[in-house]
């Protein structure tokens, strides 16, 4: 038989039926929902007069539109409050488990799914949110869907999907000190561009990927969407199994070790063919930063902004428009450029390891006076753990503002907006125009690079903090 990729194994095992010259009917094992992309789907069910088909397979949280201050009080913004209330009502009405605002398990959907044991190897997972790709770190097919598809999953536990093409990205070698998994993925996106993997599902492999923790792997899969990929996944291994073994509970799994034995078959067989293969060397990767308005516009923190977006041509008008928005010029160096805000959080870098990494540099220091710094844990659990490990205190002593969990400044639907024209170094995943507030200028980076910037008050190289 032909050698199979991990992706094929999971996909083929979930096809209820194929439509000739059309998409496959794909069965969904786990469905996550949140307040912003679900209300219209529930309205659809109501109009059709049908129930949720398998309510136990859907998990809900409120994260995008909630405040990160005084969460125990009523939400001030009326529209936001309405959206969160609709979610509560819909979950009660249709029998869906909800980790809503103020619940002890509340948090960003892609942070709580894995930490509560709802994301397991071999699953198909969808959510009305593009960063659903995060869950691919466990060896799942996980991808973002639109609201019409949310309605399909609620109604039938299935969606219609054409099978994407397959790409394998191999990263070999050892990372330098001060370089993290965020830098790996930002480096790859800068090499292949923000649309470079459109139409593909990507498997990440290689020794550099294997050596990463689960949280670091989630950061990589999270941002696979930023190169246009439908999603990213990593074959489960001992790191995955140990992560799952250490969770307090895994809903639906009775015998962990026999489940693990099953999951061990989730690998790409030798000789399996991908539509495209790319190989990178981890030793080449330095701390990264973005200088433009899409995640593909990234470079090493000590580099200069490229003169053109395409090696042989003139700079396109889109490229110049983007630099103009950022207030940068081609050929400019960013090291030493003054900044105004630092945001640590989001489903990309809002997990406990990210805050530990951030604290490595912050401990015993103070943030620069010109910087406003916001620390937003990805979930209640992360918030508790931060406090228990003394990280919260380290941040407070350094004059950082530590907030309650949520998406916060990652998309600035709530009040956590970066003012127009201000520069923010952010550990989130998108530097689009206005993403962090109208006119805000976002520079994406790892927690270490963000920490270095917060201390120095300007773009700095985190490696400086690691030389004894």
């Amino acid at each position, binding site marked *: 038989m032909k050698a199979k990729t991990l992706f094929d194994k999971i996909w083929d095992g979930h096809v*209820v*039926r194929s439509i*000739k*010259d*059309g*998409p496959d*009917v794909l*069965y969904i094992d786990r469905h996550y929902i949140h307040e*912003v*992309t679900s209300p*219209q789907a529930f*309205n*659809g069910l109501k109009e059709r007069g*049908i129930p949720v088909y398998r309510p136990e397979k859907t998990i809900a949280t409120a994260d*995008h*539109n909630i405040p990160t201050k005084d969460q125990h009080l009523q939400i001030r*913004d009326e*529209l*936001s409050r*309405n*959206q969160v209330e*609709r979610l509560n009502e819909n979950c009660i009405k249709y029998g869906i488990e909800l980790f809503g605002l103020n619940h002890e398990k509340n948090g960003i959907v892609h942070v709580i799914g894995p930490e509560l044991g709802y994301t397991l190897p071999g699953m198909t997972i969808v959510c*009305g*949110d*593009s960063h*659903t790709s995060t869950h691919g770190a466990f060896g799942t097919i996980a*991808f*973002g*869907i*639109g609201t*019409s*598809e949310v309605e*399909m999953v609620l*109604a*039938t536990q*299935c*969606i*219609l*999907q*054409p099978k*994407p093409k397959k790409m394998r990205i191999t990263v070999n070698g050892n990372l330098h000190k001060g370089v993290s998994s965020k830098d790996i993925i930002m480096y790859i996106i800068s090499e292949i561009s*923000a*649309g470079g993997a*459109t*139409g593909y599902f990507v498997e990440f492999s290689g020794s550099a990927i294997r050596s990463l923790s689960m949280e670091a792997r989630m950061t990589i899969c999270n941002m696979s969407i930023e190169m*246009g990929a439908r999603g990213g996944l990593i074959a489960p291994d001992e790191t995955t199994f140990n992560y799952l073994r250490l969770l307090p509970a895994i809903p639906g799994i009775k015998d962990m070790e026999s489940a693990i034995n099953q999951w061990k078959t989730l690998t790409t067989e030798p000789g399996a063919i991908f539509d495209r293969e790319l190989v990178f060397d981890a030793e080449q990767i330095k701390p990264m930063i973005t200088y433009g308005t899409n995640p593909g516009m990234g470079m090493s923190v000590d580099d200069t902004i490229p003169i053109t977006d395409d090696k042989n041509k003139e700079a*396109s*008008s*889109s490229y110049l*428009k983007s630099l103009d928005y950022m207030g940068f010029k081609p050929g400019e160096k960013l090291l030493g450029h003054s900044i105004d805000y630092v945001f640590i959080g989001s489903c990309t870098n809002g997990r406990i390891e990210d805050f530990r990494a951030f604290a490595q540099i912050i401990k015993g220091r103070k943030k620069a006076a010109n910087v406003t710094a916001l620390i937003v844990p990805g979930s209640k659990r992360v918030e508790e753990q931060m406090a228990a490990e003394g990280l919260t205190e380290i941040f407070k002593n350094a004059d950082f503002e530590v907030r309650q969990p949520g998406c916060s400044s990652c*998309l*600035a*639907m709530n009040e956590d907006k970066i003012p*127009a024209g201000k520069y923010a170094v952010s550990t989130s995943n*998108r530097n*689009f*125009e*206005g*993403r962090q507030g*109208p006119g805000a200028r976002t520079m994406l980076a790892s927690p270490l690079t963000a920490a270095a910037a917060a201390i120095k008050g300007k773009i700095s190289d985190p490696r400086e903090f690691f030389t004894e």
Partner: protein
Amino acid sequence: MAKEKFDILRSTCVPLPLENVDTDQIIPARFLSATTREGFGENLFRDWRYSKTGELNRDFVLNNPKFSGKVLVAEKNFGSGSSREHAVWAIYDYGFRAVVSSFFADIFMANSLNNGLLPIVVKEEFLKKLLGLIQKDPSTEINIDLDKQTFTIVSTGDSVKFAINSYKKECMLKGLDDIDFLLSIKSQITAYETNKSLAK
């Protein structure tokens, strides 16, 4: 629920000669708090249409009375970023029925097809030519024949074939919707579930 049917569309075009137009530009996050699908057109490209102080930005193409029509033509990687279907609702609500680019982000493409907005992928050279023609002469008309899968520039007769899978084409031509289809195969879905749990 049934959607508006799509068969033939003859229209002028609105040019948006920019690459990587992401969903945060199409509809900024701060307008996503609604719980219905209507009314998003008002905030389509909000931060490009209006200045920070709320004045109309006369330089932006949607505010230029020379250009109108049901077809939006943009450069590569249109609709990247978030999965928000609100982006498609905004484009549709504004009055567009087709978007042309050299490639679309995957989720945007799926969302469009689920809402009666036809995403048409054309080659880069054709796209450049089309944009040039529209900018030179805003009355340039195009004709889209979904059944034949052709996109034609009326004045020059330049015609290209575009791809769409036959299932989705059927849905758009008939105004059908995926949920109706999925509900109709419910017994197969249940059978799949039974087999799966037996295999465990």
